[in-house]
């Protein structure tokens, strides 16, 4: 898990088949895993009837990563937040009759913990407008290790080389999928990704075991904003990627989907929207209008969440 050098052999062996390759990588490194999310027991989980996003600790065996969690179902667990693994209580935290049961999110490069927390707050602020009861929200922090390391990791995603971030995310996804399917056979799970988070999402989906991969195709909806890699729809129930036309960071990776000046590209595997920038950048240099919490992506997120709620109610998924 911690040494990544042995990936090389697998890399050359399966390079021409994304799914086989990623699955092989994961299998080799899939540990005797225990996926745990713990919440500090002293934190208030709601304020004024609204769920509060609280920092949590995720563990993959002994490896720790920062997470965040919010749920307005905590009262089902009684007055105190349970010690130990929150995932053991996931059945009580999922809104059984909600439009969505779980929402996860992941940030891109060069984001601090405050950025990550703020991203989650922005998502919750949108969710409460259209989803009542509110789904369980879990954020998976993609830690920044400085611009050089972050860019290097992004290059690896593009080049389809393994990274620890992808592997961890895949293992968390597998655990979530298993837990959800055991509790709620017709669950709906939305994942929101920004920037590099979109690349991690795609690569992690390619790394899943067949059983969990099948669950994703049946239950997972993804919304990506300025993703480094557009998520193919055939890995999920429904996927959409949105780019601001003023995004100077990742729009270039989606330009190939813009057909001779047309702003929409649609086919079975890829759904990509190019939206007008509400904060047009003053130069062509990165980042431009790339921020998840800028007006453009927040406006699109609100519209997408509203439309998604309508489609779930109308049985159009």
């Amino acid at each position, binding site marked *: 898990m911690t040494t990544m050098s042995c990936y090389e052999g697998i890399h050359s062996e399966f390079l021409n088949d994304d799914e086989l390759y990623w699955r092989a990588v994961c299998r080799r490194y899939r540990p005797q895993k225990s996926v745990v999310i713990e919440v500090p027991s002293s934190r208030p989980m709601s304020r004024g009837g609204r769920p509060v996003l609280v920092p949590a600790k995720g563990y993959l065996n002994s490896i720790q990563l920062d997470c965040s969690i919010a749920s307005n179902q905590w009262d089902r667990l009684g007055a105190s937040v349970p010690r130990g693994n929150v995932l053991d209580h996931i059945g009580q935290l999922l809104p059984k009759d909600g439009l969505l049961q779980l929402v996860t999110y992941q940030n891109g490069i060069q984001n601090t913990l405050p950025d990550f927390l703020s991203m989650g707050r922005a998502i919750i602020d949108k969710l409460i407008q259209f989803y009542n009861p509110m789904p369980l929200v879990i954020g998976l922090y993609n830690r920044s290790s400085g611009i050089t390391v972050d860019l290097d990791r992004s290059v690896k995603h593009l080049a389809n080389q393994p990274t620890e971030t992808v592997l961890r995310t895949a293992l968390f996804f597998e655990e979530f999928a298993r837990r959800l399917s055991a509790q709620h056979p017709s669950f709906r799970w939305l994942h929101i990704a920004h920037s590099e988070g979109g690349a991690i999402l795609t690569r992690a989906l390619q790394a899943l075991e067949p059983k969990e991969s099948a669950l994703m195709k049946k239950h997972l909806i993804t919304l990506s904003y300025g993703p480094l890699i557009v998520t193919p729809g055939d890995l999920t129930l429904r996927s959409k990627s949105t780019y601001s036309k003023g995004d100077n960071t990742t729009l270039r990776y989606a330009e190939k989907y813009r057909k001779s000046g047309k702003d929409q590209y649609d086919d079975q595997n890829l759904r990509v929207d190019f939206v007008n920038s509400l904060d047009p950048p003053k130069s062509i240099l990165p980042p431009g209008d790339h921020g998840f919490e800028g007006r453009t992506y927040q406006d699109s997120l609100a*519209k997408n969440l509203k439309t998604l709620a309508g489609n779930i109610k109308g049985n159009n998924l």
Partner: protein
Amino acid sequence: MSLKRYFFFLFFATCSCLSAQVLRQGDIFERQLIDRFAEEMENDLGLSCDGTGGKFHDKLEYIEMSFNLVGRATVNEARQWAIYVHKRFLDTLNADENLRPYLIEFPFPPDRAGVSIAFCNPDGSKQSGGSVYYISLIGDLLSYSSIDAFNDRFLSLHKEEYEDALKKVTPGQKPAKHQDTPNEKTLDALFSQFTQEMADKQQLYVWGIGCNSPENLQEIGAKFTHFKPLHQEDARKLMILAVERLIGLVSKQEAFTSLKPEQINIRINFRNQKYTPYFDGSVESVTLEKGVLTYIRDPIWKEGDPFEELGKPQVVVGKESYQEARSLVENLN
């Protein structure tokens, strides 16, 4: 990062248009139809397409398109727009002989095609001056929403069944763009002057601004971002400056009766360039709501601190009436 990887990254950045997608025939026809219809709507009605969606496995089961339109709309006007565009979309779908073999049923029924329209200002921001902002026709339901500019949240205005809506429109009648009333024009000019002044002089950048109704102005709501950390005193000063200027501008207009601070709701968020709060002890936001200023502060967090520290609750560091706040600012001056 090695030099090799750096060049590899640059290579991807500049040459990312090389790969081609192999599409199945049905997908190609769907895509062609969407492109054609988007162009038609733009040329014919001034609608700009900003999103698509749908469900196409072996057959096209569901399809949706979303548009932006510059201008206001009343509920009646929004209904006419949605029904007309939806009808044209359905007609286009059903007339497409290439796509026909891929439709799950023919004729393609209304509830399998979704349409939504966002009514915007010329700069693309949300219409929130007494207008519908968003109408969606999904399945059998038309849903009308406006925007609460103070919180940037959707407000549900009205919902109705598709069949009921059909009875309220003139079939086939091309929708007309909303003709702004004199009050609406005055209000637009006022908001434009106010937000421009705030940006230029106070570095307060508008996120959204709106009111209850231009014909009977009783309440204005706005949300701003200031990209510098401020403490309570400076946040107070900024808020008072903004409110006094807005009240002054409204009072100059004969069309509107003067507003009191209690009729103005303003939120100022203090953010860095990534729109993240500072978490440094400065104010996260100041709001004026129902005549009361409230100052919120996030927990203090420094690089290297545990994530848990960020989970400490936000605190209200100050609450005062508008008059108290104004006196404090005047005394300072």
